């Protein structure tokens, strides 16, 4: 079976005064129907730009410089704007970190949901209303029919994010790109939304790409994980395998940085230094300057190694656990 989404060699660059900034470099991955794939990394790792690139949401000075993104067999890169607009919202949708920038403060949520349906051929007012009510109840909003007349400011932050998710669901997209959708929310609300999204993927078969900096969040929702650093995917595989026995020293470093696994009060094993500037990124492994395992070999770009369903890019990977 061919995957729902297949990205190959995706490369997105930004022209800046300091030079060409490669935000996403040669990123390849697949998402199967109904699967939740986690995309983790620190700020500047290119995880959000990867998400934006999938929907063609890259504006100048940025551009997709190379690569291919196929959704259900259809090539998205280089697609003309009209066709892309028809796909966005219908086949592939996105949920952003801040729901207040997604929603129009001047329109009731009912009106906004109707617009989203009309944009993809919705005509019958009562059918559109019924669909809006259905998606609002899918995301756990009580008394959805009454809430259609409410404005965004009448909802709490967690409820606003649910409305944004409901709008993304309206046209039954096959894939939703979720860019840190719970980061701005309180932990109790985050847990509610995580469990609702997991149920949605299970029940209606929507695939998701879950972008987050939080390894614990990704581990609780995604079956597969991609670890990004400086625009590259450094390691990928089934989430629990990767987090239980990482092959790439960066993944191990991230896990060691978490206080959850350390003895309280003891020094955490920190990754020295900070993330590199992408403008003058060299040809070698971008993590090498911060890596304890680095050697002269790391001045050259490590090729991708494959073992079963695990992949990594490292000259000195951590030995596999038997």
């Amino acid at each position, binding site marked *: 079976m061919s995957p729902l989404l297949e990205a190959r060699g995706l490369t997105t660059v930004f022209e800046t005064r300091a030079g060409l900034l490669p935000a996403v470099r040669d990123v390849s991955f697949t998402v199967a129907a109904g699967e939740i794939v986690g995309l983790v990394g620190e700020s500047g790792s290119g995880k959000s730009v990867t998400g934006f690139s999938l929907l063609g949401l890259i504006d100048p000075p940025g551009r997709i410089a190379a690569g291919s993104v196929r959704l259900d067999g259809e090539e998205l890169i280089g697609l003309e704007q009209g066709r892309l607009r028809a796909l966005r919202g219908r086949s592939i949708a996105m949920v952003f970190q801040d729901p207040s920038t997604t929603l129009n403060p001047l329109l009731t949520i009912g009106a906004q949901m109707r617009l989203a349906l009309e944009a993809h051929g919705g005509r019958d007012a009562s059918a559109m209303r019924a669909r809006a009510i259905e998606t609002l109840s899918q995301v756990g909003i009580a008394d959805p029919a009454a809430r259609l007349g409410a404005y965004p400011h009448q909802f709490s932050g967690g409820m606003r994010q649910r409305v944004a998710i409901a709008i993304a669901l309206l046209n039954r997209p096959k894939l939703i790109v979720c860019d840190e959708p719970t980061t701005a929310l309180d932990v109790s609300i985050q847990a509610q939304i995580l469990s609702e999204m997991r149920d949605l993927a299970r029940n209606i078969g929507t695939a998701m790409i879950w972008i987050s900096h939080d390894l614990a969040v990704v581990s609780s929702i995604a079956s597969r994980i991609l670890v990004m650093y400086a625009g590259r995917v450094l390691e990928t595989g089934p989430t629990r395998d990767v987090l239980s026995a990482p092959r790439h020293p960066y993944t191990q470093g991230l896990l060691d940085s978490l206080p959850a696994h350390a003895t309280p009060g003891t020094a955490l094993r*920190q990754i020295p230094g900070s993330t590199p500037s992408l403008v003058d990124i060299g040809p070698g492994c971008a993590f090498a300057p911060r890596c304890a395992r680095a050697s002269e070999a790391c001045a050259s770009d490590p090729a991708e190694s494959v073992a079963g369903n695990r992949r990594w890019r490292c000259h000195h990977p951590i030995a596999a656990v038997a």
Partner: protein
Amino acid sequence: MSELVRLEKVSRRFAQPAGLTRRLAVAAGLSQPPSVVRAVSDVDLTIRAGEALGLVGESGCGKSTLGRIIAGILPPSEGRAMLDGARVMGEGRRPVKTTTRVQMIFQDPFASLDPRWKIGAAISEGPIAHGLVAPSEARAFVVGWLQAVGLPPDVADRYPHQFSGGQRQRVAIARALAMKPDVLVCDEPVASLDVSIQAQIINLFLTLRRELDLTLLFISHDLGVVRHVCDRIAIMYLGRIVEMGPTQVVMSAPLHPYARALLDSIPRLALEGDEAAFRPIAGELPSPLAPPPGCHFHVRCRRAAESCIRQSPLLTPRGPSRSVACHFPIEE
């Protein structure tokens, strides 16, 4: 260990400022008085010298307001905040802070530094003004503190925009420590930092605390960070402390149903063989403008009974080191 910080029945209300017309209309019975939020209500709390106390809760629970009261930035509406037996702020209509012994670090290191001030000037301003260092010795003083937080001396001559978030937070820490405080109030000091940088700053806190004998109030929504840094933890819900005790004990066996629910709702790193990594709390956080009567948590609580609606439970000691505000605490 002696007691260093003491809060006695501290409350803090916030009201929309009412203009003259509104006040006249209220007096004439034509308008409702502006709504009042009780951000903190009736909090009693002590922090011992050298202790690290974690203050956790969801947004709007009053943890930052409480931190600001202890740091002498906000006066309490009622009650007293004391440091070593003396008030942190004076009395009267416009109270001012009367001590330099408590300092604060904020979440956003970008907002806490003036973009037009060089780092060196930002660090030495307070100590010079309070006579902690002579202007002629300010340079060496600044370099000393930069070194203490792991920054090179040339940082003093640069501006905030030239630094990353993690470096700026180091500068903010140096600036607070240069006032030679006994107590450091840290409001979400690592929340805006990347995971790998977070670990660096947490390690810095652990080292500085030991070397300088600091007393810490560590405000955070991240229970993993609090577990790592703090000896004791206080959990707040809608302006009240609902449970307090040694961090390890509270986190492994909480007594308050809210504490249990909060701990359960946080996703844990799920490794091989793990199941159900988190469990959401039912319901939404009520509006702090109109919190439910009695125990504020009763509307979301499975253990709630009628007495929880009628009477709000007081924070009561349970054993030598723990206390809980619940009519039906979870039994060990």
